[in-house]
């Protein structure tokens, strides 16, 4: 050891910091946060960091680069009575059975902007809930797979909540003392509901140990569970037996895509329409939305998700529990059947998948003592809040961030039709910025034409071209704005087919590519190319070119077994083509996506 080196503990600034994974809430307000935020986006996007954008935003809101720290109990001023109450309750409940703490933690973990403060009465109700749950555990074999998953979700959520509560530097020692106990206890919850709690007084320093101790089993459960692969004949047969929609598999399938479903279009819609009044198990509004998916009337990640959630809200409103069944299990089963119906109409988008997980999670976490009508009302408000917070308000936040990237005399390029990008362009135009837009479109959906029409109607100067001309037009462009169906954990952007080509050409010309995506669409899956997971559309639309009757060369393509037509819906853009992702959590580089997925998935996405 070099004796001339000053000992570490003395001089300032050389303290080895215990690296805190996740977000740390200090006692001061959020904008001084950036240093402590371990996973904050490195200032690679220099423009994001350098620009003093506070002036553009509403006063009191965050500067765009910084990922806001998790909303926490003792942090939110509007709900100050509730944190105090929960703290008091926790402190008093320390000697009490840890089941209470388990519930309290789950209460804490939830979004505290809830108007309902955990009252003592509710705590008892929770205790009863837990007792009820433990009573139900011996009947494990009777619960269906969905319910088991719901229970596991609830337990995982509680565990993560406990970890989150433990990681934040809470001032109350008792609460933090309770937390490692809770987390350990939550670990054991699956095996048995034993209440022995080693009560260790933990400090902030022990957070790291807690996170390390998260069991291997649990980490594996965090991995997304694999989707149905359609080249497995048995599972396809089973799925067909349960199917409501009659679908015949397409002929002339492309070998490379055997693992994805492809059906002959055109036969399903009339068949379903005729069965409209006979389909008892499916709620009419769900049926209607399914038809809209099939016909293509409703498309786009946000649109489909909102339509589905509203249909579910209607279905819940009209729901009544059959006798001898518990609401949560039966409702979950019903929702699952609706989801299968939707899948048959059109494979789920990732946004829809996340919303369904949220809903099932909410159903599973319902307190048992509420009456049926109260439960239904609570679920409906949950759905409305999800739509409002995760989609509507998130879009507004994205627009407010992105508007800082639109300057005067900009030439912005966009591909296809994304709802968020359209909002950004409209808002920029309202603010009076001088810019023009280039809309790039492609076959067979030609979604850009709709966007073009709407933009020109607003008075925005537009240029329209097709995707082959992207190299030609790219030398005029200053920024590229793209939407996404989802962003995966390795930073890959999963969006409409053709986006990858546009991003690649922009990257080749050195033009920044900004992807705008709400955070609820993020997914923990990873994907390297566009083949492993995709959606196959109707191949007939490729052979028919609208407005060009002379191009009938491929009219009878199905007759020839050597000829296949491929209509891909999505593609995967590698993360190195993306300069920045704009979400409601701020403006991030693509490498920060798994951080958001991991840190915010459990508590904050699931309200």
């Amino acid at each position, binding site marked *: 050891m070099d004796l001339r080196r000053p000992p570490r503990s003395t001089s300032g600034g050389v303290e080895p910091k215990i690296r805190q994974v996740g977000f740390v809430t200090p006692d001061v307000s959020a904008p001084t946060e950036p240093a402590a935020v371990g996973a904050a986006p490195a200032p690679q996007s220099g423009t994001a960091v350098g620009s003093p954008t506070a002036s553009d935003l509403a006063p009191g809101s965050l500067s765009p680069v910084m990922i806001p720290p998790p909303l926490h109990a003792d942090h939110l001023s509007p709900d100050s009575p509730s944190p105090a109450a929960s703290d008091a309750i926790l402190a008093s409940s320390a000697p009490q059975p840890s089941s209470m703490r388990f519930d309290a933690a789950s209460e804490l973990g939830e979004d505290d902007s809830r108007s309902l403060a955990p009252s003592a009465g509710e705590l008892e109700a929770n205790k009863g809930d837990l007792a009820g749950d433990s009573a139900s555990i011996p009947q494990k074999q009777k619960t269906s797979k969905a319910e088991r998953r719901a229970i596991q979700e609830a337990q995982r959520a509680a565990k993560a909540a406990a970890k989150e509560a433990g990681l934040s530097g809470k001032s109350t020692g008792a609460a933090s003392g309770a937390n490692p106990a809770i987390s350990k206890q939550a670990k054991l919850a699956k095996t048995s509901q034993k209440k022995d709690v080693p009560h260790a007084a933990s400090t902030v320093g022990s957070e790291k140990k807690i996170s390390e101790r998260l069991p291997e089993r649990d980490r594996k459960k965090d991995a997304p569970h694999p989707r149905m692969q359609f080249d497995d004949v048995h599972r396809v047969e089973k799925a067909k037996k349960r199917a409501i929609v009659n679908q015949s598999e397409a002929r002339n399938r492309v070998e490379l895509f055997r693992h994805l479903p492809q059906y002959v279009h055109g036969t399903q819609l009339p068949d379903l329409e005729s069965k409209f009044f006979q389909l008892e198990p499916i709620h009419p509004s769900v049926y209607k939305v399914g038809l809209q998916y099939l016909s293509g009337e409703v498309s786009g990640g946000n649109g489909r998700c909102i339509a589905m959630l509203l249909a579910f809200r209607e279905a819940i409103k009209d729901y009544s529990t059959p006798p001898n069944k518990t609401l949560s299990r039966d409702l979950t089963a019903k929702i699952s059947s609706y989801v299968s119906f939707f899948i048959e109409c059109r494979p789920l988008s990732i946004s829809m998948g996340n919303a369904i997980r949220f809903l099932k999670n909410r159903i599973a976490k319902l307190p048992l003592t509420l009456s049926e009508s109260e439960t239904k009302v609570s679920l409906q408000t949950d759905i409305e809040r999800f739509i409002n917070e995760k989609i509507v308000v998130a879009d507004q936040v994205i627009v407010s961030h992105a508007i800082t990237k639109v300057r005067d005399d900009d030439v912005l390029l966009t591909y296809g039709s994304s709802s968020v990008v359209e909002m950004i362009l409209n808002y920029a135009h309202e603010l009076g910025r001088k810019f023009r837009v280039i809309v790039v479109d*492609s076959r067979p959906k030609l979604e850009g034409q709709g966007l073009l029409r709407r933009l020109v109607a607003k008075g925005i*100067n537009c240029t329209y*071209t*097709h995707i082959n001309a992207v190299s030609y037009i790219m*030398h005029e462009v200053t920024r590229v704005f793209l939407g996404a169906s989802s962003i995966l954990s390795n930073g890959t952007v999963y969006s409409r087919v053709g986006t990858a080509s546009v991003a690649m050409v922009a990257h080749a010309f050195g033009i920044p590519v900004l992807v705008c995506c709400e955070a609820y669409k993020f997914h923990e899956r990873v994907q390297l190319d*566009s*083949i492993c997971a995709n959606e196959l559309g109707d191949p007939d639309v*490729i052979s028919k070119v609208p407005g060009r009757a002379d191009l009938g060369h491929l009219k009878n393509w199905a007759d020839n077994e050597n000829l296949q037509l491929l209509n891909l819906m999505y593609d995967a853009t590698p993360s190195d083509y993306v300069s920045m992702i704009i979400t409601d959590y701020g403006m991030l580089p693509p490498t920060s996506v798994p951080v958001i997925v991991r840190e915010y998935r459990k508590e904050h996405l699931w309200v």
Partner: protein
Amino acid sequence: MPDVQPLVSEFVLKLKRRKVEGSHAVARQTAELLRSVVSQHRMGSTNQAAALADAIRSVGEQLISANPIELAVGNIVRRVLHIIKEEDISSTAVGIEGLSVTVDSDDEYDSGNDDHPTLSAAVLASHARNALRAPSLQTLLDDIPVSTALSRSASSTGDSDGKTAGDKSLKTRKLKHDVIAAIGDLIEEIDTCYDQISEQAVELIHQNEVILTLGRSRTVKEFLYAAKEKKRSFRVFVAEGSPRYQGHVLAKELVEKGVQTTVITDSAIFAMISRVNMVIVGAHAIMANGGVIAPVGMNMVALAAQKHAVPFVVVAGSHKLCPLYPHNPEVLLNELKSPSDLLDFGEFSNCMNFSTQDGTPLLNVVNPTFDYVPPKLVSLFVTDTGGHSPSYMYRLISEYYSADDLVVQRKSTS
């Protein structure tokens, strides 16, 4: 000359109105037109080659300006000028040495000999030997005595030059004859370029290949047919190539030959290219730096191929090789076509009425025809002279074109 003017005007009109399109058809028709021009040109007594070249230049100027984007026109005009120069050089060289043996025209060898029976067989043989042998130390040493012998005979012929006007007319006829024959060769070369390129298909395509192509190129089609003939197994992804959608036609043709074909949209090219072994495309023109003028969308394909390390092979006949270096080719060597290919006028007519204060329309539609692919994205050129890398293409220019023909303009006016 007046006989040929209506032909020229007719062709100019066809070019201007884009009635004839595609490098093969254009090149062929240009060559045939120039052959008629040469055959109907009245040769003067002196400076025939220069006069002939001048006539070609005046016609060529008109043709090139009719459609400057169609580079094949300029290529053929420059080829013919080069032919004239070459024929002239070889015939004057022979004239000095008393022989009318030309290096280039193989067919003319016999007739040449018949015209000059006065020369001895020995001198003939030695000259032939010199002409056909590659330069080496031996030939250098051998040259000295032969050339002195030839100069002696040349001086003798030179004296006899004046006495035969018949000689001169023979020479005149000879030059025209040679040039016309050479242009005939050129036309044949244009027609048979597909066969020679297709012969190389077997070397590039082996078993279980997956090939990607964009749009429809006749050269690519023949290339793939040849590989199929030789029983190589491969699959083809054909991107449809909007806005012309010629990919559909190519797919149909390939399927008829039994090739496994999948038609994809242009937007799916990046998605599929990770599973592709080779990209084979045709070109509209090849520039002197090795860059390619190709149908729109090709640059995107080339970039995607580079990203996935897939070889990008361009197949093209040598009549597409242009001696010019491109400057800003996306703009200067491009043509914007009608927006009706992309947007239906009827549907969007209401958008056309909006305008800003200065009257500029709010809606612009861009529909370019060509794309420029820089040489660094091209892995290989397969031409009828074999396979070349892009950095080599400029050497081929000296074989086909002469340096002072780059700007085709009438010399007599300047």
